[in-house]
């Protein structure tokens, strides 16, 4: 529901001052025209109080009924009706207070067209102002709703993008465990524990927007250990993180899809063994993480690197930071490098504390 300006102090103070000045001016004019002080004051107060009351009426009506474009004519009618009502009410009241004051009656008749004109103008102005005011308020309401709706969709999308756990990974890990149970029961047990710990940290992190790099690297290590059991000695991994990066913040579960992508293209692009390297460093106060995997330039067209695994990360970074260039890919000889830059904002820290 729209808020009437009569409920706001910010509006009422200038509004009252205006009318005070206006009433005084009105009274002064009548006095100069030869009316006595008392009659001038009474007339001014009566006619202007009626106008204020009219203004209040206009605002109250429009609070409930705001005409669209085709209803603008109704506003014009409203102004005419208000002015007529004002005129009759004013004449009636003044007649009651001043029955038979000839000088006053004469003055009233002389200034009649002028007074009606001014009343009409004031009513018109008030109506236009009310119309503009409520239109503006309605617009800012819809804008607010739109912003809220957009924020909700963005949050939902971010949540979905964070849910990165691939069913592929889970089922293959379970299959490895299934194999180990009869061959190497001890290792099967170990892998069940690794998988559980990984799932637990992942579930916990899905609720959080931001984590410290060392937490993220810890679950990354768990993930890589599981993949190493799957692929045997074909997969080796290295994680190199500068000490000052470990306490830096990054969006939760951001790195795992990058590493998943690196394994997918590194390991499935060769029949030999593959090394995946993760490097973290500080560049211009931002956290830079690079994931490297070898690839075969001959059989993998370059566009493959920007596949759907990476585009979801890019989308997430865009939603969080409003920047599109935070994720970059490059190739150096036979190494494919995916780099993410994570700005370290003050706001991030605040959000983490919440």
């Amino acid at each position, binding site marked *: 529901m729209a808020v009437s300006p009569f409920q706001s102090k910010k509006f009422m103070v200038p509004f009252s001052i205006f009318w005070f000045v206006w009433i005084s001016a009105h009274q002064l004019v009548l006095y100069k025209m030869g009316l006595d002080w008392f009659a001038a004051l009474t007339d001014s107060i009566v006619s202007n109080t009626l106008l204020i009351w009219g203004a209040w009426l206009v605002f109250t009506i429009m609070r409930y009924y705001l005409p669209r474009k085709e209803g603008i004519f109704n506003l014009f009618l409203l102004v005419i009706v208000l002015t007529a009502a004002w005129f009759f009410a004013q004449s009636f009241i003044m007649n009651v207070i001043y029955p038979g004051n000839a000088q006053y009656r004469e003055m009233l008749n002389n200034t009649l067209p002028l007074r009606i004109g001014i009343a009409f103008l004031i009513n018109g102005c008030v109506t236009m102002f009310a119309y503009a005011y409520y239109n503006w308020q309605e617009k800012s309401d819809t804008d607010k709703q739109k912003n809220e709706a957009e924020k909700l969709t963005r949050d939902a999308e971010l949540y979905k993008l964070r849910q990165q756990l691939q*069913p592929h990974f889970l089922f293959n890990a379970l299959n490895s465990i299934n194999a180990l149970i009869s*061959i190497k029961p001890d290792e099967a047990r170990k892998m069940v524990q690794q998988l559980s710990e990984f799932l637990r940290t992942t579930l916990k992190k899905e609720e959080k927007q931001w984590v410290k790099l060392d937490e993220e690297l810890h679950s990354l290590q768990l993930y890589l250990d599981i993949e190493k059991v799957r692929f045997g000695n074909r997969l080796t991994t290295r994680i190199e993180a500068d000490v000052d990066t470990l306490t830096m913040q990054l969006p939760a579960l951001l790195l795992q899809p990058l590493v998943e992508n690196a394994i997918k293209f590194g390991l499935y692009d*060769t029949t030999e063994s593959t090394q995946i390297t993760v490097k973290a460093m500080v560049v211009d106060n931002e956290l830079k993480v690079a994931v490297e995997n070898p690839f075969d330039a001959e059989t993998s067209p370059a566009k493959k690197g920007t596949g759907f695994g990476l585009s979801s990360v890019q989308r997430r970074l865009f939603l969080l930071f409003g920047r599109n260039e935070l994720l970059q890919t490059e190739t150096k000889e036979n190494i494919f490098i995916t780099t993410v830059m994570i700005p370290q904002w003050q706001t991030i820290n605040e959000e983490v504390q919440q």
Partner: protein
Amino acid sequence: MSYKVLIIDDEPLARAVVKEYLEKHTQLQLAEECSNGFEGVKAVQQHEPDLIFLDIQMPKITGFEMLELIENPPHVIFTTAYDEFAMQAFEANAVDYLLKPFSQERFDKAISKWMEKNNAADTKATENLLKEAARHPQQNERVVVKTGSKIKIIPVQEIHYMEAADDYVKIITAEGAFLKKQTMGYFEDVLDASLFVRTHRSYMVNIQEITRIDPYEKENHIALLKSGAKIPVSRAGYPKLKSILGL
């Protein structure tokens, strides 16, 4: 009677499970274990197995691509973790598919299903399966061909044009021509239609290779490629080419 089988999977532990489950089926002899499609192609030629257990996601070439390279592919039981695209293919045509991790009971069931099918000599199955598998997204990014004993992976961007040659399609790239046992219609279905145009009953061309289109004889045209090759454009092919090039 005993049958020869192969296990083709890149994960050692995944092979170990199948091997273990196989132990109780004494009529099935494990001829070889392969860890990728290349080894798989060789082993199929060498052992001529009756049945193979095949993973789909493997290094370099997928299980589907491996099957395409084999003249008369044997019966296949797929063993895979999760692949929504392949699922449709499985449901339509595979002997059976085992979703990892699977149990001994489920495995036994697949074997007995195959035994029945094998007796019915259902050879169409694998063929149909490959047609379905063509819908797998990876299939339209590259073409896998065999040249002698070598296997070549051609990214589709590198194809200049294709030409029908009896039961084969000749694929011409900068490195030369490769033969693939396939139909033009297949490639027309599978390849990106904004990149490849069937300009003629027997020709399909990569539009990025075209430098010029000239009129030729009555109502026909000729497309000139960067490599200098001249590709016939039929009366029916010309409007298709024009609309894709935005002429």
